[in-house]
């Protein structure tokens, strides 16, 4: 069963990822991105990261992709890009070689390191009768709000800075308004 879920989610992820880089239209690329993000959320559920799967769907597939589509709409850049033109000669062959090399190195490392890890954490609670249905959320919350509470607060500062910075960046200069 887990195999079946894995194959379906992998197909979603890979089809979506290829769609992002081969679709000419930016809106189609953004919709392919949604497919990939949902596939990743499915794999999160398959690996008992239920809270992260929910956040993945809400934040990524919801907020971030909507932001992309909103910017595409706002700028009116939804014109088709000609993918045939290659601005730098030999850019694509070099990119193919780089990515295949990267993939080869990563896969070699994964295959070599297979089984080298041993469990050393305190355990991930699974939702069952003893832990309740929200075990993953509870455990993640305990981790974030106790051990990593400083990082959590710094993250909120980062978000405020990002919002204020974006407002400043996209605001028109005062002289040009009047």
């Amino acid at each position, binding site marked *: 069963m887990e195999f079946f879920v894995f194959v379906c989610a992998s197909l979603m992820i890979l089809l979506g990822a290829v769609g992002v880089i081969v679709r000419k239209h*930016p809106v189609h690329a953004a919709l392919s991105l949604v497919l990939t993000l949902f596939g990743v959320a499915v794999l999160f559920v398959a*690996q008992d990261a239920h809270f992260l799967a929910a956040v993945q769907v809400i934040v990524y597939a919801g907020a971030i992709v909507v932001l992309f589509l909103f910017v595409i709409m706002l*700028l009116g850049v939804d014109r088709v890009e000609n993918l045939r033109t290659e601005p730098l000669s030999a850019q694509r062959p070099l990119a193919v070689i780089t*990515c295949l090399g990267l993939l080869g190195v990563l896969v070699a490392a994964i295959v070599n390191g297979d089984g080298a890890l041993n469990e*050393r954490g*305190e*355990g991930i609670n699974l939702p069952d009768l003893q832990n309740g249905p929200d075990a993953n959320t509870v455990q993640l919350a305990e981790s974030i709000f106790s051990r990593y509470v400083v990082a959590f607060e710094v993250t909120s500062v980062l978000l405020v800075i990002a*919002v204020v910075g974006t407002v400043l960046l996209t605001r028109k200069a005062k002289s040009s308004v009047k």
Partner: protein
Amino acid sequence: MIALSLTPTSSWYLILSAVLFAIGTFGVLVRRNPLVMFMCIELMLNAVNLSFVTLARELNDINGQTIVFFVMVVAAAEVVVGLGIIVSIMRNRAAMTVDDMAELKG
């Protein structure tokens, strides 16, 4: 029926995330629309998140899932700032590609 009795090990998940990361890298290197390049960066971030969650399960350690939470928050902030920059640059020239953004060139 043999296939249905197979259970994916964490190596399968890690290889899938490596493939996803390579596809994202290829997109960043090849595409010229800044918005699509941004989407490819999102693909790479998702590949890393997937491998974090896989290793959290492998190590039986919740901290791998905690860091994915922080990666998501920072990714959201990054998208907001990056799209703000793209909007402020492309407001005047809509049909732009990254090759045209050479303002800082000496």
